[in-house]
């Protein structure tokens, strides 16, 4: 419960903070709370990977780019506020609509029993037996991302 509140508040912090660096930090907090949820739901492996990939790698990359571009100061001019409000309102409206849509769904409660599907061993079995094709295919994705980084990043 507390985790959830923290998650929501820090998520809002990402959106609302004026300083991009604060946003990044808020996002990292959110990620940690989400990782907490993972652990609560017996997805230990995912929690670890999540911390490593998101909080560790990706956010650092973001932070790095922000610093590189010297964007730590607030640069957004305050013109056209209506777009902001409109954005907030429509985001809220989307929330309302989705909640209304899913309100009636009768879902079971999650048991507190520990399950072992989140263990690295079980996941590995699935990944290399059943999910080997996507595993291979994702290499294409990485290759193209790599080429992309080269093509776009390389100076001419």
């Amino acid at each position: 419960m507390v985790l959830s509140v923290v998650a929501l508040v820090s998520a809002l912090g990402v959106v609302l903070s004026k300083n991009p660096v604060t946003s990044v930090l808020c996002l990292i907090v959110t990620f940690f709370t989400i990782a907490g949820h993972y652990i609560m739901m017996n997805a230990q492996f995912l929690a670890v990977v999540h911390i490593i990939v998101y909080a560790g790698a990706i956010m650092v990359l973001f932070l790095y780019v922000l610093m590189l571009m010297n964007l730590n100061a607030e640069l957004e001019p305050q013109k056209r506020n209506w777009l902001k409000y409109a954005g907030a309102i429509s985001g809220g409206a989307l929330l309302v609509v989705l909640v209304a849509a899913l309100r009636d769904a009768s879902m079971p409660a999650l048991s507190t029993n520990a399950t072992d599907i989140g263990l690295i061993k079980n996941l590995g079995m699935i990944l290399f037996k059943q999910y080997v094709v996507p595993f291979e295919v994702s290499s294409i994705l990485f290759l193209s991302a790599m080429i992309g980084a080269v093509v776009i990043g390389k100076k001419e």
Partner: protein
Amino acid sequence: MPVQYYIFLSIALFCIGVMGVLMRRNAIIIFMCIELMLNAVNLLMVSFSKMWADAGRVDAGSAQLFVFFIMVVAAAEVAVGLAIITMVYRNTHSVDINILNRLKN
């Protein structure tokens, strides 16, 4: 704890992400908000995984693998995305998306 709870939490996070995309003009922050959306999805996916595991589905772990793949893709996207943003910054010295409106009508 009912699954409903997680559904609403993820949707809330998701919508906050959407809100961020709509409200911010800094391309990097927008991108971060998109990452937030993806994480909301991940959270929901994990809770469903737990739900189906409780229901006795053997393959419930595949949902967690799906989350894993989402992370993989997100990483790839970040690589490309940050490259693009850097390229744009190099040319315009700004990451404000509203400066980019050469293409219109």
